[in-house]
């Protein structure tokens, strides 16, 4: 082995603590990059493969009741490759031991058993026998949640008919990749199910003999979707067409796509930020590390080693650390990505999983670390190479403190000698100090912004479930009913308050922008479900126009005072022009509010409601829920506590869970930075400090000179880190928000207080480690050799 290789290995060993800290910082940056991009790529490719293999429909066209022969007409539409009709309906499933029945969706299986579109994946058991009307497939997640298996029976009410059904198999389907109960955003396997049943049986139950109530379409590759949808609507209109829509607006697909988009935007924003910070730190740290080797570089040059040889030696040192960190980061990223995918599998019902890692993310991570490290190293090497060897290896550092002399003198009455040394060094080497300070500030910013993110998630959940929705129960009716029906509910024992609501399905348009959703009619001073402004104050419902949520306003590119076109998809299906009168903060979904009776007047259907919010006696919840579900007009009852806990679970285990990983990484990076700052300061000053000790300064005084410097830098870094962090947190929040939920964030002092504690504790620990080394330092050795 050549002596330079020996030197390399020994130097690495000597600075192992520091090398590990630097390696970890870069590893964290790379890990996040690899993990997030791997997660996105895996989810995306699995989704695409699933849709493709199980032939997810391009267009859905719900209709009240259309004759079966219409298929031919529909099939001849230009751009339609294939049509399949089916019968769908709502069901209530009795679960033994549960107070109230659980909602489910019933879907017919094609008569010949082969689904051209929206095929089912049979995960257990067998397909139902078309000749036996009581045989069904049950969606896997629901079956598992209730311990049901093929061979078990299930009692369900379909269209008013109670049936005992035989489960022959468990299934999944691409149209139910993401399953949530109606009116809820978040899936809960136990509270919503899907049943597949023979076509004949479904037709009998839902009175669809020779008819269908939903048509599915596969389009040709060159189809013009808009034209096809219009044509379908035209044909189905006489039969009560509810408006055909593309797969991009299908509930499950929309949610999954939103989630993946959101994830992608997080993956495109946050990891690069982390990686940049890590790379920047690497750059600074490596630069300072090489700087402290100046004399050795000069010596090698004196022996006749060429710049290339010396450069290669130090680059090797730097690259071992950088690539070591990057590779560790890749490995951790793969592990982390796989873990995250497992979390997502709780919510995304994939029958199989294609693990994909994005090779670009490896490359980006590794290249960024290598560039940053070699950049930092080369910059310093170039500066040292510009010196003559004699200069480079000139004995004690020729630091010129003369310029800072005045500062010390001016303050000499106030400061003792060690304090003056601290102050002089800081003022004398402002660039170096600024580098260290910015490094620590970056750590502070990462930690602070991640902690803010935690608070913002919590805040958003709190606001949603305590300020916006103050009800205990939400009930939805099968269709519009007269509000007089609420009277019976309102007078029931234990029901404290009933507030009507009417949801009307509608398409909102503004120029090229459109949104398929619903309008929500509520009383003027709605109390249980409210629209709120950015100060969390309730906004009164208005009769003269719509109040749009911020997300919806952004999607439609519209602001208060503009007009919006509302194509109502219910009743007489009028098209209305309405002004937008206010914008409400929203965290959840994309609501559009209007005063209830104004909505009813516009629809010429006075007094109608589709549901209600209830406040009840908590002690009577089960009893009331059960009673409500027994009412014929009630289609569903949602218990807010359950919805809230399901939502929290998703935020903490699914979509939002990456924030915990990021938080952890931010802490590791912060510790790594601060530790390095302390180590390097020590390396730069080891000789001076040994001299001080020899001159008779105590260990404490010598340590003060070093740690005082670290303390000053750290304290200056805190406010700067806070500012940086606030900017960073805005970016992170924007990245986390999707169409489905919006996380909002103000300035969170407590987050930065805690981040400051993280930084200070890191400084304390690093300071103690360095002080331990100082105390142990072999004075003679430090003076005798030139390190």
């Amino acid at each position, binding site marked *: 082995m050549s002596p330079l290789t020996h030197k390399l290995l020994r130097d690495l060993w*000597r600075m192992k603590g520091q090398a590990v800290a630097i390696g970890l910082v870069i590893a964290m940056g790379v890990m996040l990059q690899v993990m997030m991009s791997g997660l996105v790529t895996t989810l995306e490719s699995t989704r695409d493969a699933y849709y493709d293999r199980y032939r997810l429909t391009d267009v859905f066209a719900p209709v009240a009741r259309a004759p079966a022969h219409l298929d031919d007409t529909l099939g001849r539409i230009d751009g339609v490759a294939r049509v399949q009709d089916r019968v769908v309906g709502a069901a209530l499933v009795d679960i033994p031991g549960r107070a109230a029945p659980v909602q489910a969706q019933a879907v017919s299986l094609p008569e010949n058993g082969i689904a051209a579109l929206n095929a089912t994946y049979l995960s257990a058991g067998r397909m139902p026998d078309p000749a036996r009307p009581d045989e069904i497939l049950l969606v896997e997640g629901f079956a598992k949640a209730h311990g049901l298996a093929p061979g078990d029976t299930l009692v369900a009410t379909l269209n008013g008919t109670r049936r005992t059904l035989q489960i022959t198999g468990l299934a999944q389907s691409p149209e139910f990749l993401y399953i949530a109960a109606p009116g809820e955003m978040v899936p809960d396997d136990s509270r919503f199910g899907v049943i597949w049943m023979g076509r004949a049986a479904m037709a009998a139950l839902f009175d669809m003999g020779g008819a269908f109530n939903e048509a599915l379409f596969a389009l040709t590759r060159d189809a013009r979707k808009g034209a096809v949808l219009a044509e379908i609507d035209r044909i189905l209109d006489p039969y009560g067409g509810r408006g055909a829509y593309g797969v991009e607006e299908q509930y499950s697909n929309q949610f999954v796509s939103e989630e993946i988009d959101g994830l992608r935007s997080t993956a495109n924003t946050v990891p690069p930020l982390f990686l940049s910070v890590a790379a920047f730190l690497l750059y600074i740290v490596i630069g300072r590390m090489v700087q402290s080797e100046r004399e050795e570089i000069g010596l090698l040059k*004196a022996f006749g080693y060429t710049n290339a040889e010396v450069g290669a030696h130090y680059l090797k040192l730097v690259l071992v650390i950088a690539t070591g960190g990057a590779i560790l980061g890749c490995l951790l990223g793969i592990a982390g990505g796989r873990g995250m995918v497992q979390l997502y599998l709780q919510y995304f019902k994939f029958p199989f999983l294609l693990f994909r890692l994005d090779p670009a993310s490896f490359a980006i991570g590794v290249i960024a670390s290598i560039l940053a490290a070699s950049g930092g190293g080369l910059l310093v090497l170039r500066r040292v*190479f510009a010196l003559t060897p004699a200069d480079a290896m000139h004995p004690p550092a020729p630091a010129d403190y003369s310029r800072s002399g005045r500062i010390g003198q001016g303050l000499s009455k106030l400061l003792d000698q060690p304090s003056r040394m601290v102050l002089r060094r800081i003022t004398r080497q402002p660039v170096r100090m600024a580098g260290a300070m910015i490094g620590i500030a970056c750590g502070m910013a990462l930690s602070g912004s991640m902690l803010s993110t935690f608070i913002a998630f919590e805040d958003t959940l709190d606001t949603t479930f305590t300020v916006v929705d103050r009800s205990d129960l939400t009930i939805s009716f099968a269709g519009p009913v007269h509000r007089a029906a609420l009277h019976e509910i309102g007078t029931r024992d234990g029901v404290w308050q009933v507030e009507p609501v009417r949801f009307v399905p509608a398409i909102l348009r503004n120029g090229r922008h459109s949104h398929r959703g619903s309008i929500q009619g509520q009383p003027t001073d709605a109390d249980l479900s409210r629209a709120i402004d950015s100060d969390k104050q309730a906004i009164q419902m208005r009769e003269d126009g719509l109040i749009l949520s911020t997300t919806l306003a952004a999607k439609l590119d519209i602001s208060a005072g503009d007009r919006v076109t509302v194509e109502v998809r219910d009743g007489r299906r009028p098209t209305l022009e309405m002004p937008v009168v206010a914008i409400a903060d929203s965290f959840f979904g994309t609501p559009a509010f209007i005063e209830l009776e104004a909505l009813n007047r516009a629809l010429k259907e006075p007094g109608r409601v589709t549901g209600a919010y209830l406040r009840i006696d908590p002690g009577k919840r089960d009893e009331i829920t059960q009673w409500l579900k027994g009412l014929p007009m009630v289609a569903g009852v949602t218990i807010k506590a359950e919805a809230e806990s399901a939502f929290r679970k998703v935020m903490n285990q699914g979509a939002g869970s990456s924030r915990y990983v990021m938080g952890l990484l931010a802490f590791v990076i912060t510790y790594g930075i601060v530790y390095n700052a302390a180590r390097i300061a020590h390396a730069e000053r080891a000789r001076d400090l040994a001299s001080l000790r020899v001159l008779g300064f105590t260990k404490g005084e010598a340590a003060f000179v070093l740690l005082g410097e670290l303390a000053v830098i750290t304290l200056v870094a805190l406010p700067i880190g806070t500012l940086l962090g606030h900017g960073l947190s805005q970016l992170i929040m924007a990245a986390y928000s999707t169409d489905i939920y919006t996380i909002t964030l103000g300035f969170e002092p407590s987050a930065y207080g805690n981040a400051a504690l993280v930084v200070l504790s890191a400084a304390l620990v690093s300071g103690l480690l360095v002080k331990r080394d100082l105390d142990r330092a072999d004075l003679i050795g430090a003076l005798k050799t030139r390190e």
Partner: protein
Amino acid sequence: MNDPAFTTTGLTKTYGEGEAAVHALRGVDLEIPPSEVVVLLGPSGSGKSTLLNILGGLDRASTGQAFYKGQDITAMTDRQLTRYRRAHVGFVFQFYNLMPSLTARENVELVTEIAEDPMAADEALHLVGLNERIDHFPAQLSGGEQQRVAIARAVAKQPQVLFCDEPTGALDSTTGRKVLKVLTEVNAKLGTTVLIVTHAAATADLAHRVIHFADGRIRDVITNKTRKTAEEIHW
């Protein structure tokens, strides 16, 4: 053979500028024939190390010229200086300058690694009387031992020129004589030109030529008619 090894004309070196300027060399005109042992004497701060650094290609002169075998060192590019040091020059630094992370032997190997016709590292260490401690790190060696490693390192590459800045400063007289013997042997055997800076005036007796330095200038040059051997010197 008759061409001088080194010639300098009007060599000056100034550190810093303006009021704070230090004139380390104030015009040095010098001629050193090849294969001689030359001893430089002079008070502290008189510019001896500075001259050595410039002749060795470690530092640049402010004005004037310095030639090594007809080549102008002061006009060389960095690359040429590196090649010059690598091919021709051995150094013993005033402060030893050993690599702390390398053992005694490895410190010598650091130089033999890139030399054209080096002797074995162990051989060079034996030559300076270091037999046992060759696998120790500099921090584990005494000052004198470190100095001997530094000399072994300079001698091992069998250079054409050897610059020694106070090579015996930290040594007892017996070891010092041993080291001086090594240096004169290298000179005799290989025809190496040896420049020795020292504060031990007695060392002058073994030189072909003695240069007295004062205040950045040459005060006088004495050529010894007879030279003593290293064993005959006492200080």
